[in-house]
């Protein structure tokens, strides 16, 4: 098998809700665990309308910046009650929420540390493939300024990757298209 013989993507379509959501999906950490907060947001289309048939998935390091995965060379280490993965379908108003812990800084390329961040996949009817973005944290100004991924994003758009503080955590809206379009990544 050579490069290029992978299976193509197809849209989740309008009926994703019967197959993908899990009752505990929005919880990247055990529901009863301490120290969690919500990241809430709304998924918008290019006309500024909420997308009610979408799904958000998140993947992130634990508070020490580690991953419970064999490819973390420091060795997999589980943070109690923490799954690192969140999944939430959008509701009729395009809203989603993920309950999680703040990730620690994560090693990057060439000696640079990455600022705390969460990788996000967006799926929706009308998307033939997922789109990928990242959530960064507003109180991490110094680490964000040194982050190699953020540094590669032109200044006015960079702000779309930084969550806003909220009463029970953060707000991170995702605009697929249009004014204030969220930065999406080629992954």
């Amino acid at each position, binding site marked *: *098998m050579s*490069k*290029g*013989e*992978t*299976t193509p*993507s*197809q849209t*989740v*379509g*309008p*009926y994703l*809700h*019967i*197959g*993908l959501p*899990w009752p505990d999906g929005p919880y990247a950490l055990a529901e009863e665990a301490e120290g969690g907060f919500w990241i809430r947001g709304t998924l918008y*289309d*290019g006309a500024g309308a909420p997308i009610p048939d979408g799904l958000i998935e998140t*993947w*992130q*390091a634990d508070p020490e910046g580690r*991953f419970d*995965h064999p*490819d*973390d*060379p*420091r060795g997999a280490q589980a943070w109690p009650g923490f799954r690192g*993965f969140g999944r939430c379908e959008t509701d009729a108003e395009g809203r989603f929420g993920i309950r999680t812990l703040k990730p620690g800084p*994560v*090693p*990057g*390329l*060439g*000696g*640079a540390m*990455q600022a705390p961040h969460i*990788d996000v*996949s967006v*799926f*929706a*009817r*009308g*998307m*033939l*493939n*997922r*789109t990928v973005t*990242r959530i960064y944290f507003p109180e991490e100004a110094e680490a964000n300024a040194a982050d190699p*991924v953020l540094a*590669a994003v032109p200044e006015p758009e960079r702000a779309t990757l930084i969550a806003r503080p909220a009463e029970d955590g953060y707000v991170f809206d995702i605009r*697929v*298209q*249009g004014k204030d*379009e969220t*930065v*999406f*990544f*080629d*992954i």
Partner: protein
Amino acid sequence: MSTDPRADGVPLAAGYQRDHEVHPPLDYPGYRSTALRHPKRPLQLLPHMLTEVTGPVLGEGRIGETDNDLTRQHEDEPQGQRIIVHGQVRDSDGRPVPNTLIEIWQANAGGRYRHAVDNWPSPLDPNFSGVGRTLTDAQGRYRFVTIRPGAYPWGNHDNAWRPAHIHFSLFGQAFTQRLVTQMYFPGDPLFFQDPMWNSIPDEKARQRLVARFDYANTAPEWALAFEWDIVLRGRESTVFESEVDDG
């Protein structure tokens, strides 16, 4: 080991091969709903670092006893042609992807989904939910028993019908390997007018979404069989330098 850059004394695992040419473009006018749902700015290149080469390890405790048999989830059997759908999940270097979660969802034999917004005039089947899950085994193999889904109409264009399909969701072993796709059936007469199918630029890549009728695994007097292998992105070659067979 490869010569990967280090940070904080931590070597980084190699990234995954990028395979964009295989996938449909996000902007595809033939599928009208893409118009307002594709980013217009160019995508920013994201190097594959630790967050991208790791991913959730899911499934254990998430799979129920009848989750891989959609014909046994209710009191009685669903209407329709019973089928076995099986295959192997590999990466593009041919390596099996073991112990990875596969989720499926589909319409019933009449082409109707058990979903609040699917209300076209075809009956629901009280004995069919159309949702399944399984984990691949140590060789990356999976197997579902279900019924053959029907085609269904939609509003994309005049007299639009979706070819019969089963939606598949796969995690692989890394965030970069995540894939949601659809499996089709051989010889479907509806491909020509289907924008999902036609959105895939390369004809050979389209054919990789079509299952093979598998007479050898057909269960006598019980079920037809279809075989469908799924190929996820492989690692960048650099990581395997030290593993090249030099014997």
